[in-house]
């Protein structure tokens, strides 16, 4: 008898939220820090290049990718991020986009992460942040920075310091307790996991591979993107056990 081998589904998955171009140097460092902490980086290309599938829009897929992660690392710079409203027919399919047409995808990702109760580590660019292109601070990003600063944030100074900060945070949440539970008790398990987190006890709860019924499991198909991150789409597949 043995437990499933370590796969993409049973290591901590870390979603990196950022404007790709502006934050490229810090994004690279984030991926390195995540891998060196024995976790798995996840990515979602901002709109273009991601195709809707399984009847879901790219907005759905983006949300699913964040919600099925364990950690969100936000790298928040000055440049305006992608805005889902007005992209193709997204605002027809997702009426919530009309409530705030200016809302950036980074803001959505942040809110999804908070709603899902995953760990959120936001890092903010300042005028003194090194190794980044000279970009003016966008008004919407500035407002987002202000909201983020009402909670604990990390400051981006230089890539070396950021690497140390991120590794330290990731290692501190590496779970050492495995929570075994029935799928029917998913809500209780999630609540228990969150309560224990407040006690600084970090618990691993496998919400991905837990059987639906004999022989089936909810899983993610994942494949490496150009930057070595995983792009994930949720669906149901058969699993052997």
């Amino acid at each position, binding site marked *: *008898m*043995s*437990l499933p081998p370590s796969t993409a589904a049973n290591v901590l998955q870390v979603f990196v939220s950022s404007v790709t171009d502006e934050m490229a140097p810090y994004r690279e460092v984030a991926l390195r820090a995540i891998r060196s902490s024995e976790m798995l980086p996840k990515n979602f290309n901002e709109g273009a290049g991601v195709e809707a599938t399984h009847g879901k829009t790219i907005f759905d897929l983006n949300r699913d990718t964040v919600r099925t992660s364990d950690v969100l690392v936000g790298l928040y710079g000055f440049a305006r991020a992608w805005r889902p409203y007005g992209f193709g027919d997204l605002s027809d399919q997702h009426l919530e986009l009309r409530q705030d047409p200016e809302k950036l995808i980074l803001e959505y990702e942040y809110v999804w992460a908070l709603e899902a109760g995953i760990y959120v580590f936001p890092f903010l660019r300042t005028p003194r942040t090194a190794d980044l292109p000279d970009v003016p601070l966008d008004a919407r990003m500035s407002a987002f920075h202000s909201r983020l600063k009402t909670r604990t944030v990390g400051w981006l100074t230089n890539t070396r310091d950021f690497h140390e900060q991120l590794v330290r945070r990731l290692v501190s949440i590496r*779970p*050492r*307790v*495995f*929570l*075994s*539970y*029935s799928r*029917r*008790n998913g809500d*209780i*398990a999630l609540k*228990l996991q969150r*309560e*224990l987190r407040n*006690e*600084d*006890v970090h*618990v*691993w709860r496998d919400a991905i591979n*837990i*059987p639906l019924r004999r022989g089936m499991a909810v899983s993610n198909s994942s494949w490496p993107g150009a930057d070595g991150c995983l792009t994930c789409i949720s669906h149901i597949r058969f699993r052997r*056990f």
Partner: protein
Amino acid sequence: MDVLLVLVTSDSAGSEWVQKECLEFVHRQKPVVPYVVESQVKNALPDYLRSIQYIDGTETTGFSTLAQRLRLLLAH
């Protein structure tokens, strides 16, 4: 993983997969902590959990006892 925490309910008590995970940790001589959250299960624990001291999550002090036990186990 260093410790197995089992969320014990009437559903999990009948789960083949929960049993497998539990027996795997026992086989590896790693600590198993059953956390019972339904009163009716206390008298109907599955065989593989009967010899392990459980924490009663239905009591008001249950959660703090659990957090304390886990911290203690992780400190060793």
